[in-house]
């Protein structure tokens, strides 16, 4: 299974059997046969997902020391710790496909690997922490729930664990927004400004529009993906709009309107035009915080060197003591 171009002729029956398994909704496990392209797609997707969880700790970590109350500080700490855990579950899942942890770390630090662009935006106020929990985690949940049924066993299992933990994140964020929205005029405005900043980047989190998303079809066939980007994006908007209304905040999209014909007559929101130029600019590394995020990660990695070395040294010393005692 080391051909990285075309599948060899004798793999054809295996590939057919693989696809049948997926069509029967059976899971693929690490030691099962899988086409090289399936393996590569998963390594890329799970790796990006893991990196996103890990980089996602940075914009929020920024507010841990300045959280307005002890209760909020505890919640934020727990949330950031969860993100670290989620990153680790996902790195494990990617490792079962033959990619080493060190390689993934190096790719993140060198900028070779991507992570979600949303984390390249700054968090200038406390309300941004609310907006991230409510919108960014909200969008992430929308994306992640279908992944719990992904065809690759270890990824699906990691996602089930993540989704269970993630729902507190969105509630935590919404509660921050709600508290600000019910507060003083300044606090309300702060909440509204944060919503204005995070709305479009959150809507873009679902990725390019279906017509510009050429990989979707294969991923759907392999049951890595169960819905298209646009389907999930619309579902997200339909869920968030009433939540914003409930706390008296305004979605910054003047073209947003209810369309009763959508979703087979159940209705849904039509949204305004998405600025894809901005999306690609941030993806390509020119967002407001791209450099900052990667240099923070590099700094943490470099400064952790002595800890990693000490742990290794300690382990090898103990190892020799054990051997001597035996």
């Amino acid at each position, binding site marked *: 299974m080391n051909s990285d171009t075309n599948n060899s002729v004798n793999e054809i029956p295996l590939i057919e059997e693989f696809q049948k398994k997926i069509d029967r909704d059976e899971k693929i496990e690490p030691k099962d046969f899988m086409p090289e392209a399936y393996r590569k797609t998963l390594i890329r997707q799970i790796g990006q997902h893991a990196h996103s969880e890990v980089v996602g700790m940075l914009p929020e970590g920024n507010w841990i020391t300045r959280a307005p109350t002890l209760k909020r500080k505890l919640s934020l700490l727990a949330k950031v710790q969860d993100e670290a*855990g989620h990153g680790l*579950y996902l790195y494990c899942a990617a490792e079962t496909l033959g990619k*080493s942890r060190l390689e993934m770390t190096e790719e993140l630090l060198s900028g070779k690997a991507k992570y979600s662009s949303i984390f390249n935006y700054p968090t200038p106020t406390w309300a941004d922490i609310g907006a991230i929990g409510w919108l960014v985690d909200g969008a992430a949940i929308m994306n992640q729930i279908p992944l719990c049924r992904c065809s690759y066993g270890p990824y699906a299992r990691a996602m089930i664990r993540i989704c269970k933990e993630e729902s507190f994140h969105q509630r935590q964020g919404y509660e921050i927004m709600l508290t600000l929205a019910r507060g003083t005029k300044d606090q309300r405005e702060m909440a509204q400004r944060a919503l204005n900043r995070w709305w479009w980047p959150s809507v873009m989190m679902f990725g390019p529009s279906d017509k510009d998303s050429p990989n979707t079809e294969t991923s759907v066939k392999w049951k890595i993906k169960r819905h298209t980007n646009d389907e999930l994006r619309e579902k997200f908007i339909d869920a968030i709009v009433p939540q914003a209304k409930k706390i008296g905040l305004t979605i910054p999209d003047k073209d947003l309107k209810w369309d009763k014909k959508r979703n087979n007559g159940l209705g849904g929101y039509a949204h305004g035009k998405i600025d894809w130029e901005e999306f690609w600019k941030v993806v390509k590394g020119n967002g407001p915080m791209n450099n900052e995020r990667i240099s923070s990660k590099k700094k943490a990695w470099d400064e952790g*060197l*002595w800890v990693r*070395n000490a*742990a290794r040294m300690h*382990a090898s010393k103990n190892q020799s003591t054990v051997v001597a005692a035996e």
Partner: protein
Amino acid sequence: MAEEKKDTDLWEVFIQPKNGLSHRHCGSIHASDRNMAILAARNVYARRGEGQSIWVVKSKDIVSSDPNEKAENFSADDKIYRHPTFYDVPDDVGHM
């Protein structure tokens, strides 16, 4: 001081939810030794009262069968006499 360019060992983590249940696999972690492995397993897989006991074992110490040998390892279809439904018992005997 230069860094060794390789990962620390990978360990599989098992958690026992409570007495009476078996330890169940929940994922893996990297650690340099067994104490660090238990600590990492606790930090990563036990943040919400998931259980009462953790096992960690080096992934490379696990011996596993090949899923392609499922038929040889898990033969069942040809030994139907190992299942209770193979045996005919009159209905009026009741539950057995």
